């Protein structure tokens, strides 16, 4: 590639030279200069000079060669046949073709010539007037000459062919004298610099080699000197007393640095408020579903203070260190303490064994390992005792001595601790590798202990402590979610444990957002598929288990439910909606679950105020279930999953008058979903009243939420009719129910008179008139010629369109010139023909005139004869 480029370059240079020669010769009046209005320095221009005359004549020449040929041959119908052997045969290789052709030619020649060839003598081949046969005899001589010539630096060809092709030596000499071209000079410079560099390198290498050699030699000698040197070192170390140590310590002690001023409580509160406000604003923006771009930008510039950085946990780790009976009270520090002790032990062990130079390094590494886990803690605490253990690496011996002193104390402490710790939980936990491990760890422990274990596990694996901890915590999160789902199905529900788990799940979810999202989404999809499978097997929707319901609730705590689009929340909403619209109520438990989902929906949409037709429909269905008398003749308007006729339709009808009841107890979540009581705890009037109250309460809440919607009336129309129909039976309910009923009815009635405005499309903003003032661009870049459309694809399209337009223009111009040329040619032809004809006519006329003249002359003569 490079070579060809070079060749091309040279070729073009030659060409340029020729050209310039001609240009000089050509008429200066024929050159057209394209003047520049504003000369710009350092800018290369393509079309500075034009040569219209030459260009035109060239174009005409070209047309004469191509277009004119075509034009002249337009009526020709004969064809050129390519009879070359194997020319159109793709199966033959070039050699084969050549062989064939050669054979054919030979044969042909032979056939022709061999007829008369009597003596079968070969022709004598000559070269430069000499017989080749003769030359061949001097083979040896030639080869020696060749060598010679190569050594001389001549081209062998020159020698081989007698040199008659090359120029004479005198000319060559002339060429050497010529000043070098710019390129050659540059090449020379490059070569020189490379040479210099190489030399420098070589010199350096030589020096290195020599030094190495010296070192080697020195090592041989050094053992002789060793005794002397070692002594002096030992002396100096002995000399250093406490004072020196102190001085050194003080020297290396870190100095106090300027820190930020402590914030006053007010300032802190203000900061916190600002942070929350910002988060709230973000939430609102997402709720409206505004632009992903801005969000993307934001995610790029994530500040250190933001969510992902464990903001919620930070303050907890900064607990104060306090001692009680010589031990730190805070388990956090205790833990650090213990770790450090372990480290110390390692040190001493190593120290005992290690005396060799070679193993120092290893020890250092060990030190670092032991220390790395505790860095965070150390930075927080100012306790020098433990810190010292791993600080100075420079003065190893001193360290070891110091360590020895400490270790005894530490060991004692440790023994004490082991005794107490045996009763307690261990302080460090590894993150379990799989779900079974986690379960075996937590199995059959009281919930408070389980929570503590989790807490410690998280502390030990804080992302700032080690490299892989973040991913460990991510896996822990998915295990915990799994665990949450499994304990949520337990009978009876352990609410405390669930609450504790919720907290940990929430906090762990902050580790990294995308894995969190994926983890929760995967579990959700799994649950959904289970639900779907059951539905398909039974042919009808079945309410999912308690764990799914509680999982919905958990999701609402981990993710913002008000987002317009959310990769976890959107499928969850769809799932809940499907449950409400697909699963028919077949037991009291189903009612409880359905109502729970309605309430969860409330939780999900209370900020975004989104419309959930399924909930309204379901609550309407519950009202229908509580209706005492169902007309046998008239079918009520209920939508699936409720059916106008069915055996479950009386589930919420009160069995007796309960208007005297004053208290309506709340239902415990752990009780209401339990299946162990055989549902008898739900099949009573208390539950019915509760369900009715909750239904009315939720309807009221939803109504308040949708109040401002234009078609709220239509949305609540079925509810309204249901409420009115129920007016009679409501008397049986306790006061609270009646009160709720009344308020709801009033609110629904109040919707009627609301004004609504006719719909209108958003108007197009009028296009402003073009201004005369110059338009200023903010980010004007003069080096960029075209303004990009902002989009890569659009830019590409724009470029292509431009190119297409240019090509089109060029093609049209060419075509126009072609036609002009042809017209010219035709005209020329016509003129030529006319001229020819004219000439012929003239000749004929001349001939006729002559004839007539002759005839007349003869007539005259005849007359003369007569007379």
């Amino acid at each position: 590639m490079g070579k060809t480029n070079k060749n091309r370059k040279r070729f073009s240079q030659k060409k340029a030279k020729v050209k310039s020669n001609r240009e000089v010769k050509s008429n200066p009046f024929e050159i057209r200069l394209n003047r520049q209005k504003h000369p710009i320095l350092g800018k290369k221009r393509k079309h500075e000079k034009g040569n219209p005359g030459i260009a035109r004549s060239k174009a005409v020449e070209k047309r004469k060669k191509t277009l004119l040929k075509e034009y002249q041959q337009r009526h020709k119908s004969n064809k050129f046949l390519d009879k070359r052997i194997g020319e159109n045969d793709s199966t033959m290789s070039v050699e084969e073709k050549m062989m064939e052709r050669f054979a054919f030619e030979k044969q042909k020649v032979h056939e022709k010539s061999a007829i008369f060839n009597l003596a079968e003598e070969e022709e004598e081949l000559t070269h430069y007037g000499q017989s080749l046969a003769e030359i061949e005899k001097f083979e040896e001589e030639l080869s020696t000459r060749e060598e010679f010539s190569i050594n001389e630096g001549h081209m062998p060809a020159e020698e081989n062919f007698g040199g008659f092709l090359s120029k004479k030596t005198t000319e060559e000499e002339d060429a050497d004298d010529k000043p070098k071209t710019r390129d050659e000079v540059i090449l020379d410079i490059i070569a020189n610099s490379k040479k210099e560099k190489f030399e420098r390198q070589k010199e350096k290498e030589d020096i290195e080699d020599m030094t190495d050699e010296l070192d080697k030699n020195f090592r041989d000698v050094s053992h002789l000197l060793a005794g002397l040197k070692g002594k002096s070192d030992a002396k100096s170390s002995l000399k250093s007393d406490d004072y020196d140590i102190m001085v050194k310590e003080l020297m290396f002690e870190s100095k106090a640095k300027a820190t930020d001023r402590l914030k006053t409580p007010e300032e802190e509160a203000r900061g916190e408020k600002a942070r929350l406000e910002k988060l709230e604003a973000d939430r609102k923006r997402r709720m409206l579903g505004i632009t992903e771009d801005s969000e993307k930008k934001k995610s790029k510039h994530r500040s250190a203070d933001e969510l992902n950085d464990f903001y919620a946990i930070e303050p907890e780790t900064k607990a104060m260190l306090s001692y009680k009976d010589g031990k730190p009270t805070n388990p956090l520090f205790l833990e650090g303490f213990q770790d450090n002790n372990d480290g110390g032990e390692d040190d001493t062990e190593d120290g005992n064994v290690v005396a060799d130079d070679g193993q120092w390094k290893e020890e250092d590494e060990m030190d670092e390992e032991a220390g790395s886990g505790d860095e965070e803690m150390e930075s927080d605490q100012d306790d020098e005792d433990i810190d010292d253990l791993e600080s100075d690496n420079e003065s190893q011996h001193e360290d070891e001595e110091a360590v020895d002193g400490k270790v005894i104390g530490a060991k004692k402490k440790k023994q004490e601790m082991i005794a107490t710790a045996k009763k307690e939980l261990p302080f460090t936990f590894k993150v379990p590798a799989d779900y079974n491990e986690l379960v075996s760890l937590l199995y059959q422990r009281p919930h408070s202990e389980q929570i503590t274990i989790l807490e410690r596990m998280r502390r030990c694996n804080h992302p700032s402590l080690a490299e892989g901890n973040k991913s460990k915590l991510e896996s822990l999160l998915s295990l915990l979610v799994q665990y949450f789902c499994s304990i949520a199905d337990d009978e009876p529900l352990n609410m405390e444990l669930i609450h504790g788990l919720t907290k940990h799940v929430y906090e762990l979810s902050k580790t990294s957002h995308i894995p969190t999202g994926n983890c929760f989404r995967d579990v959700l999809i799994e649950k959904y598929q289970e639900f779907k499978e059951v539905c398909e097997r039974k042919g009808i929707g079945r309410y999912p288990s308690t764990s799914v319901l509680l999982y919905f609730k958990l999701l609402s705590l981990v993710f913002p439910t008000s987002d317009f689009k959310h990769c976890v929340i959107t499928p969850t909403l769809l799932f809940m909606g499907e449950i409400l619209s697909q699963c028919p109520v077949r037991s009291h438990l189903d009612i409880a679950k359905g109502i729970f989902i309605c309430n969860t929906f409330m939780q999900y949409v209370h900020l975004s105020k989104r419309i959930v037709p399924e909930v309204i429909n379901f609550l309407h269905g519950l009202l229908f279930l509580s209706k005492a008398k169902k007309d046998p003749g008239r079918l009520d308007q209920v939508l699936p999953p409720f059916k106008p006729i069915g055996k479950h339709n009386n589930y919420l009808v009160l069995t007796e008058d309960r208007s005297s009841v004053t208290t309506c107890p709340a239902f415990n979540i752990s009780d209401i979903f339990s299946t162990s009581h055989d549902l008898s705890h739900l099949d009573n009037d208390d539950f019915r009243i509760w369900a009715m109250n909750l239904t009315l309460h939720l309807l009221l809440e939803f109504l308040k939420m949708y109040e401002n919607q234009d078609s709220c009336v239509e949305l609540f129309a079925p509810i309204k009719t249901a409420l009115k129909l129920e007016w009679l039976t409501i008397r049986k309910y306790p006061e609270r129910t009646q009160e709720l009923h009344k308020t709801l009815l009033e609110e629904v009635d109040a919707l009627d008179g609301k004004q609504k405005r006719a719909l209108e499309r958003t108007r197009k903003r009028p296009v402003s008139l073009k201004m005369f003032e110059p338009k200023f661009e903010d980010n004007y870049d003069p080096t960029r010629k075209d303004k990009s459309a902002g989009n890569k694809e659009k830019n590409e399209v724009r470029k292509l369109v431009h190119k297409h337009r240019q090509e089109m223009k060029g093609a049209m111009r060419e075509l126009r010139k072609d036609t002009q040329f042809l017209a010219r040619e035709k005209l020329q032809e016509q003129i030529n023909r006319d001229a020819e004809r004219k000439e012929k006519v003239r000749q004929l006329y001349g001939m006729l005139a002559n004839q007539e003249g002759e005839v007349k002359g003869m007539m005259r003569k005849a007359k003369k004869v007569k007379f």
Partner: protein
Amino acid sequence: MATSMVNKHVRDEKFSTAGPKKSKFSHIKEKAIMFLSSKENSNVLVELLEYTQNEEKGAVLASIKALHQIFSTLLKNESMVTKESQSARESPPKTVHVEHKYKEWLRGMYRDSVKCLAELISDGGSSPTVQELSLCTLMKFMETENHHPIVARKQHEYIFQQTVISNLVPHLVTHRKDQGELLGRFEEYLEFDDLRFFLLTKLAAHLPNVKNQSLTQGEMANVCQNTLTLLEMVTMPTKDEDIQKFVGVSPDVEANLRILSLQEHRRVFGNAWLTFLKLKLPSKVYKRVLVLLHEKVMPHMSSPVLLTDFLTSSYNVGGAVSLLALNGLFFLITKYNLEYPEFYTKLYNLFEPSIFHVKYKARFFHLADLFLTSTHLPSYLVAAFAKRLSRLSLVAPPNALEYVIPFIINLFVRHPNCSILVHRTEGALDFTSDPYNHEEKDPAKSNALESCLWELETLQSHYHHGVATRAKQIHQPLPKLEEDLSDLLDLDVADLITKEAQKKVSSVPLEFQPAKRLFGGHEEKFSSEFWSWG
């Protein structure tokens, strides 16, 4: 013939050694051989016939086989045929008479045995193997009989021997049980054009009889189910040239026969269906018929217009049946210029809240879209449809909304006049209530044109973002092209969820309000009045 007899003997000997049970079968087989060996043993035939009524399955099977053997031999030898000219020449008158009588008797026996076998097919007690065997035997008889007719016929005359078919039909569509399996076996025979032709003829003749019998509901359901299964299996030829496959003798192509004309085939097919549809169909069959009608039946009928009555009455039934009848009606309206009064009014009334939960909703919406493609519809009607749909959308599940909203917008694209429903700039602009009356049955009186689609505006805050985005389209200028609904119609919630789950996310926003407990945290909507958590 002789060799086969020898073979039989060998086999029988084998069987006779097997035991007492086997001996009975071999006994039956021996009888068949006895009958074939000489005319003196003719009365064996009566015994064999009796065996077909036997309790034991094995005996029945053996007797069927025996009958098969006997009659296929007889038929092939043409020993039951009386040929006048031949007999007159060769034997004296008296023997002729005896011979004639004997043949007559044989023919009678043949008919009886066909009847017996057919009886076996529909018998509630007989096992599937017996049924299948007797069916196959009958079909074999039919084939042989058609090649060697028992009644002499003229040269080149085409007669299809219908002994078997006429006996078979009532038992195929029996009221006694569901013949689904057996009919599956029968399907291969329906490829024969002549068989199909006469089967359908006989079926059309038989079905009115069923109507006259006093059958219980279950029995009627069986008849209908069987007939439907049978008719469903029929594949009709589409060109005259396709009629080539015959069980019996192929008729002369030159002769202008009914059996060779496609038109006749279609007529027979149509007749069979029409008589079938006159029965009182159970709802399951009814729905299936409606599903089949426009694709499998109507194109093959000589005059589908005859179905108008049926379809009209179905359309008036309401509910899912009406939805299904739409397809057939559409076929008639478009291809046969059927004038249907108040078609659109009825269509309008089919739009009910439960429409989103029925099985055939995709088909219904597809058709409704087709019906409303016409640009000649008055705008009040289109507006009424749009408004009704938008009202219904308030109770629709999200997957339905994914196509309902584009459906409405497509209506506006076709009828830009109606877009006043989303873009009203003149007249009274403030409303206290919606002028649209959704209870009105007549779209003309529903005042839809005076209303606006506030429902869609409400849906702009639907919980699913896809729906919300679609609903926001009403504020944008009308698109130039309609949106294709075909992909959207089959969507269900599971599709939406998987679509949502497969999206790649660049960031997952997390809740910033710290959560300490599952219940009772920040902004708890689970009111402590109703819920408690320990």
